[in-house]
């Protein structure tokens, strides 16, 4: 056991680099917050060092053999006791005042903030940029106060951006608001790096791997955004990224790029993107494994047994209804936990998702069987449809 200690201490050494104690300071709150944290920590040490010192000093200094009498039997000293009861109170009042003042700043949203809607669900995020633009990434403009209007479609979540020192629970059944002002813009990585990552992603056929590349698919470095209220199975994977743009124009350009299916994108590809971005993949697998919701594999065109015992045909109407009113026809063996995407997906989006689901089924009237190469599928299916 002691053999492990040196290892542990060397690990301890690693932590005392500059970056270790806090995440980067990237909002106006961060500086106040870290300063306050420092003040409190200093006060803690101010109390702790004498207490711990005296504790061990007394334990050694007044250690006596058995039977020895204590040097003093003083029972109380009201004056001393009153002093050490009342003196710390002033420190506490000061701390409370500082904390509450900073808190009021954090709670009071400035007029004219840039507004973004946030929808949290198990286990992902949808940021609403208005005009029907939804994306899981949170994109902001540097030095622009931004207000988030947040709601949850299932259980309590909590939006936490460590770099901004900002956190707020998202409680279903009510709107919660938060705001912050980012102070550090995200860097852009070099074109080569981006190209390399894009190429790799395309070849692997998987979604974008933020952890591997540490930048977004548009080439921005990012801050982490976590869910900090326990929300079930994949709570720890309910993360997304925050990108801070240099200018409003840059942000608008990005929004435009992600807002809707461009004319050069097939519905299947767009549907697949939505499947990844909008949280479908958290519950619906493509390989037939059972998650919180039924798998898409071979679903389209099949007969689906419902909780009520009825059977329905898994067709376009069923997909549409299940997206808009998921609790209407719940598949047998599953809990009615899917949130409604009513108003969040355009008709074209739903159409695209339906097309994507079709590609995953061998029952599809379109004669392209689902293979491990969805990209090929998409182009083929796309041509027949468009």
């Amino acid at each position, binding site marked *: 056991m002691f053999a492990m200690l040196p290892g542990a201490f060397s690990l301890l050494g690693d932590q005392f680099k500059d970056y270790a104690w806090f995440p980067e300071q990237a909002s106006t709150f961060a500086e106040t917050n870290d300063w306050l944290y420092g003040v409190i920590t200093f006060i803690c040490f101010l109390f702790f060092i004498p207490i711990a010192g005296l504790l061990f000093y007394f334990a050694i200094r007044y250690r006596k053999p058995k039977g020895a009498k204590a040097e003093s039997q003083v029972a109380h000293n009201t004056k001393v006791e009153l002093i050490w009861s009342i003196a710390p109170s002033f420190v506490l009042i000061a701390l409370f005042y500082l904390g509450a003042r900073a808190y009021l700043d954090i709670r009071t949203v400035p007029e004219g903030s840039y507004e973004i809607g946030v929808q949290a669900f198990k286990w992902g995020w949808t940021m609403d940029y208005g005009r029907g633009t939804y994306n899981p990434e949170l994109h902001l403009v540097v030095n622009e106060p931004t207000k988030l209007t947040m709601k949850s479609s299932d259980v309590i979540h909590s939006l936490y951006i460590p770099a901004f020192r900002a956190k707020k629970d998202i409680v279903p059944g*009510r*709107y919660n608001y938060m705001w912050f002002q980012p102070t550090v813009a995200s860097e852009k990585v070099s074109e080569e790096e981006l190209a390399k990552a894009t190429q790799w992603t395309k070849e692997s056929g998987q979604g974008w791997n933020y952890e591997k590349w540490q930048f977004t698919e548009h080439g921005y470095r990012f801050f982490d955004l976590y869910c900090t209220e326990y929300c079930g199975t994949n709570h720890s994977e309910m993360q997304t990224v925050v990108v801070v743009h240099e200018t409003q124009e840059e942000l608008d350009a990005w929004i435009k790029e992600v807002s809707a299916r461009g004319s050069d994108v097939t519905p299947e590809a767009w549907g697949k993107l939505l499947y990844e971005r909008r949280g479908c993949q958290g519950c619906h697998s493509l390989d037939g494994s059972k998650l919180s919701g039924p798998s898409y594999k071979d679903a389209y065109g099949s007969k689906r047994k419902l909780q009520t015992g009825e059977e329905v045909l898994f067709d376009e109407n069923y997909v549409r209804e299940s997206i808009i009113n998921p609790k209407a026809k719940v598949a047998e063996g599953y809990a009615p936990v899917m949130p409604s995407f009513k108003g969040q997906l355009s008709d074209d989006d739903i159409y695209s998702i339906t097309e994507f689901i079709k590609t995953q089924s061998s029952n599809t009237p379109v004669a392209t069987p689902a293979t491990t190469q969805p990209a090929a599928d998409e182009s083929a299916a796309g041509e027949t449809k468009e």
Partner: protein
Amino acid sequence: MSDHSTDSHGDGHDFAHPMPVPMLLAVFGALTVLTIITVGQASFDFGSYDVLIVMFIATIKATLVGAFFMHLAHDKPFNIFIFVSSFVFVGLFIIFTLSDSQMTSKDFIPVDDAVPISAPAEPSSVPAV
């Protein structure tokens, strides 16, 4: 802990205080009258004072029950203290929780279940929610 010896009757070691029957009957009478009043006032409209009046009458009734049927009027101060303090804690709990709910209620999203979404053609698409 014994402060009974002074007000006991019968022999000096007895600690029972039987309530006189006329008093019990009088309390019951008062309670019945108050019940009739509270039912009666419900048919008049006092607007926002309604809750206050109803609660005031109920509190009088509760006090009567507590003081005489539960002999709090003759009980030890400590028992009265703990009984009353329980209401203080309930009050604390309700006041904090209620005031917070009221202050945040402007952000509540109502559940929209008044209109079933299903098309009439499709049978029983909405469970009895």
